[in-house]
């Protein structure tokens, strides 16, 4: 027990330096949850996450779980995937979902928005070539519609094609008939999602993460 708390204080001091608004309390709550998910071990693997019953209904479950194990989200310029992650990596992924505060300056907001968009981009760009190709985008839409049966699959291709066309027309308005639009780069991705104000939308309320409402990952709830 003592080791845990000492470790938390180390992590929290490092975290407080890196992440703006994740307070020590929030870190403690998340650590408790981490312990639950990992059966009190040091690391969690994909199976631990897959066992969460509430996630079963989520159409993009696989992508979400993969995002936790994606090295690109650790901001250390590595690529590939982990097999297991420790609490630090877990926290790093979670920090992508912190909200801006009244004190966040304009530059910080920009940086936050870029970071969140990068997270989304990494989720779509599965082969890590820096662009989201048509095939990858189709896969995204198919997964979104995966719970809708055959109708979904038929329409997914059309929707993905239309979406890709839109990105291309917005970013590169004049292409000769022979040109080819390779794929959505990160800049184009930012441009197309400018209107959504990611820094305010992509967040969860860390403050309310309370042990009372936490469910054990393995219980049949």
């Amino acid at each position, binding site marked *: 027990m003592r080791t845990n708390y000492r470790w938390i204080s180390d992590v929290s001091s490092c975290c407080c330096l890196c992440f703006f608004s994740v307070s020590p309390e929030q870190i403690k709550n998340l650590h408790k*949850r981490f312990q639950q998910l990992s059966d009190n071990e040091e690391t969690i693997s994909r199976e631990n*996450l897959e066992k*969460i019953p509430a*996630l079963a209904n989520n*159409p993009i*479950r696989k992508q*979400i779980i993969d995002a936790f194990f994606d090295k690109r989200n650790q901001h250390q310029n590595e690529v590939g995937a982990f097999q297991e992650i420790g609490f630090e990596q877990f926290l790093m992924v*979670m920090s992508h*979902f912190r*909200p801006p*505060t*009244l004190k966040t300056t304009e530059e910080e907001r920009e940086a936050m928005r870029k970071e969140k968009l990068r997270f*989304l981009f990494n*989720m779509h760009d599965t*082969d890590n*070539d820096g662009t989201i190709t*048509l095939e990858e985008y189709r896969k*995204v839409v198919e997964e*979104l*519609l995966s719970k*809708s*049966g*055959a109708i979904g699959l*038929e*329409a997914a*291709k*059309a*929707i993905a*094609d*239309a*979406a890709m*066309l*839109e990105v*291309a*027309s*917005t970013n*590169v*308005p*004049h*292409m*000769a*008939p*022979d*040109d*080819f*639009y*390779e794929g959505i780069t990160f800049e184009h991705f930012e441009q197309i*999602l400018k*209107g*959504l104000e990611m820094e305010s939308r*992509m*967040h*969860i309320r860390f403050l*309310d*993460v*309370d042990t009372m*409402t*936490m*469910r054990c*990952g393995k219980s049949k709830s």
Partner: protein
Amino acid sequence: FPAFCHQRPCSLPERGLLLLMVLVFLEGSVLPLGAASSPDTSHQTNLGDHQGTHTGPNSTKKPFPVLAVEYDRVQIPFEISLWVLLASLMKLGFHLIPRLSSIVPESCLLIVVGLLVGGLIKLAGEEVPPVLDSRLFFLCLLPPIILDAGYFLPIRPFMENLGTILMFAVVGTLWNAFFIGGVLYGVAQIQPANPSDLHQLELLPCLLFGSIISAVDPVAVLAVFEEIHINELLHILVFGESLLNDAVTVVLYHLFEEYAGVGTVTLLDGVLGVISFFVVALGGVLVGAIYGILAAFTSRFTSHTRVIEPLFVFVYSYMAYLSAEIFHLSGIMALIACGAVMRPYVEANISHKSHTTIKYFLKMWSSVSETLIFIFLGVATVDGPHAWNWTFVTVTVILCLVARVIGVVGLTYVINKFRIVKLTTKDQFIIAYGGLRGAIAFSLGFLLNQDHFPMRKMFLTAIITVIFFTVFVQGMTIKPLVELLAVKKKQEAKRSINEEIHTQFLDHLLTGIEDICGHYGHHHWKDKLNRFNKKYVKKCLIAGERSKEPQLIAFYHKMEMKQAIELVESGGGVKLPSAMPSTVSMQNIQPKKPPPAKPVERVLPQLPKGREEEIRKILRSNLQRTRQRLRSYNRHTLVADPYEDGFSDLLIKKQRMVELEKKMSNYLTVPAAPPDSPTMCRARLASDPQAYSMKPVSDSVPTIQVDLASPQSPDSVNLLDEFRHAGQQQPEVEDQGLMMKPPSGPSGPNKPREADEARDQQKLMRCLSDPGPSADEDEDEPFLP
């Protein structure tokens, strides 16, 4: 000559102005005429006439009246029509005068017109009709505006900010009412020694007055905010507040009115008041929701009688309002709940035309209502018995402003602790400044009983002054202030499919993250609600196939439909009339195969110019024939009659045909299909409609049975020869489906060989992609019946 030219551009607004003046005088003169023909005497004379002719054959026979005037029979409908006509002509007039509408908001102009008309009537010496009669106002003029607001309420931002809106609506209004009432009473009491009227004012009437004047008015807010286009958040906050404070106003009004006669309010009454508030608010919402579900359920069966679909929407909503009014529940909240609940289901069930009808009728009625309300305000001002008291009126106006500012600042301080997107000072200023009062306050004041409230006239005068102040001063200055403070404006950009995809993606992502954290936050509950909706509710309330249609697909179809309609309306140019003229088309996006180092690729540069032209002509004529064949297939089999059953399925099929048409005409002469020989292309097109039935897809490449028996034109045989030698080497290209076969290997330059042929053929098609003039003609035919 130049002078004449000078005059030409100005003549339109001048003519408009002249028309306005004439009409105002006309209306002004006819209305008193109407009032003048006293119904009793003319009725008597008519009766007398009848009596005269019937009393016997020996009475003097009057000559047969060739032309008779009998005004009183039609008086009421005639006058109502005149007022409506006046209102609409005023609206027309304002928009003809270009600069006026940008400086002064419409509501101000309308009040001025009302003042003019009222003045004219008074000048004519006639009695001004009691136009802002409370029954007329609450039962006829207010519901269309609220229904329009409720039906088109943007649900997502409303729900996201519901907590904030409720705080402002409930706590804010309560604070305003008590502060204004209390301070006014205090001021009235400390009046200087000479016994002024104000000493008569007791506490309860003051509080009642406070509760009437404190509510932000939805009509005024809509009228002003409509023109300033601020961002969605602020709009929904102020507007939502104006709608939801109705419950508070109703309870406070009835509470104080009830007990003003008695003189005291005990603690028990207070507690009962609080309970009453919950009953009024939740009861109103419940009544609205019930009627909404009934309307949605009814619309499920209207596929055979499309014509009366809009009627159900209107009648059920009005019934919801009236039912709530029976029990003194909040009619406004009932109406909002009804509109918001029924909309997603009704829209999935009704035809496109009914949807347009509902939209336009609601806009029309709410527009006319709003105009009439402001004009009547002006007329009532001229008419109303006024009792001006400098102290009372000025203190009221000042207090309204002060109370609003303090309320907003205080509440925002508390609310910001719970909000993620905090409200900045600029936001607070706009919220405070946007708290306009309007006709509801006046009507409530008008309803007061003169006996119980001897100060009624003074109240009315004060209410009118506050309304004028807020509408004129605040209404006119808010636009420049918004510019000055650089408040974020509404984003004009259309909702794009990418944003829609990512909104949905984010929803699922955040729900997933919440589940991983083990935290049951809004996303979790929202997701649960959506799943419940999809599983049970939609099945009951939506007819046929549409009940299973996921939101993304529905959005996509709607977008395609809109684009298709735009295309038809623009006369069918080659390019889509989008905001950004772009030369990007589907071909630019399809996965590219690298150029193979094969001799067969030389087919492309080796074609002489003449041959190219010939090929182009052949392709074009082939496609035309295909298209015509396709269209005739359309007419006979797909489109029977839009008013028959299964129209929604037809709609889906049609949208897909539209999609195909679009691809054909806009992107290439050949459709964005895998590069096959033209024969295969045509064959596939002919058999395409079958391809759109729901088939399970085995793998990512759908297979489509190519009907090789389709008639081939003799011209195509030559073309086939061109590619045959190339085609023979790559047989597997032939069984590709509608979409490009995904590159099976890793992306990059090392593509497998069989894909080379595909790209090579595609390149050929691209260089010949010239739609030519004849392609455009086909586009002009409407493909929607």
